């Protein structure tokens, strides 16, 4: 499990920098897919409707992840921790069971 507290991820040889984080609240926000796409859109600085290629489903089934992490039979009972991470275009998207959606991009070598 990667350490997110420092705001960056070490993935083999490349370093990833946290560029965006949104908190997903299953009680208020309608669905996880929307929350993740909006976070990615903020990271790229485009409208969420312009985040198109590829559809998230080609990377991860967010509806199933939503049920696993935030389903009504999980929320309030779960004392565990867990994060799912996947690569979406140039980003790493991390979704934690505590609701944090974090977007990382490769740190510039600058």
């Amino acid at each position, binding site marked *: 499990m990667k350490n997110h507290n420092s705001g960056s991820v070490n993935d083999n040889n490349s370093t990833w920098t946290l560029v965006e984080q949104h908190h997903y609240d299953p009680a208020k926000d*309608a*669905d996880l*897919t*929307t929350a993740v796409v909006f976070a990615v859109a903020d990271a790229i600085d485009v409208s*969420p*409707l312009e985040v198109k290629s590829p559809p*998230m489903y080609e990377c991860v*089934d967010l509806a199933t992840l939503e049920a696993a992490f935030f389903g009504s039979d999980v929320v309030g009972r779960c004392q565990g921790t867990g994060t799912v991470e996947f690569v979406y275009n140039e980003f790493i998207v991390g979704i934690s069971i505590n609701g944090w959606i974090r977007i990382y991009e490769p740190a510039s070598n600058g």
Partner: protein
Amino acid sequence: MIHEPVNSESNEPDKNPHELPRPHRDEQGQLLEILSLDYVYEALAHPRRRYLCYTLCEDIPRSLTDLATKIAAFENDSPEHAVTASQRDRVYVSLYHTHVPKLADNSVLTFDPEMETIGAAEHTEQVLTALEGMSASLVMAHPPRTGEMEYEKP
């Protein structure tokens, strides 16, 4: 055991090779077919996917934006013209990124990425049959309010 399924039969001493098919075979075949209909349950597991499937009853191509507006109207309990762009866009994004590709993956619908319309596919009919069966039993048990009917028959 797995690799020698015929053993138990061939060990029976008086087996008649011309006997009629075992009476359970049809039932078993049907059971196997029902148990393998994963895509039906997958398709119907989420209310937004159920809505998408229902719209396939009518043979009219519908755009994702249209569908998102209708779903947002239902979910916010407001008429379509009162749906805000933000409400519509939030539904649209979930359809585009999760629900439509999942249904397309299971051949329950086709998606035209250029026109952004959905259409019927190989497994549409089976899913619709399951939906009809469920709503028929629901209507018997709890006659729907007007709003619910609107959702079920877009």
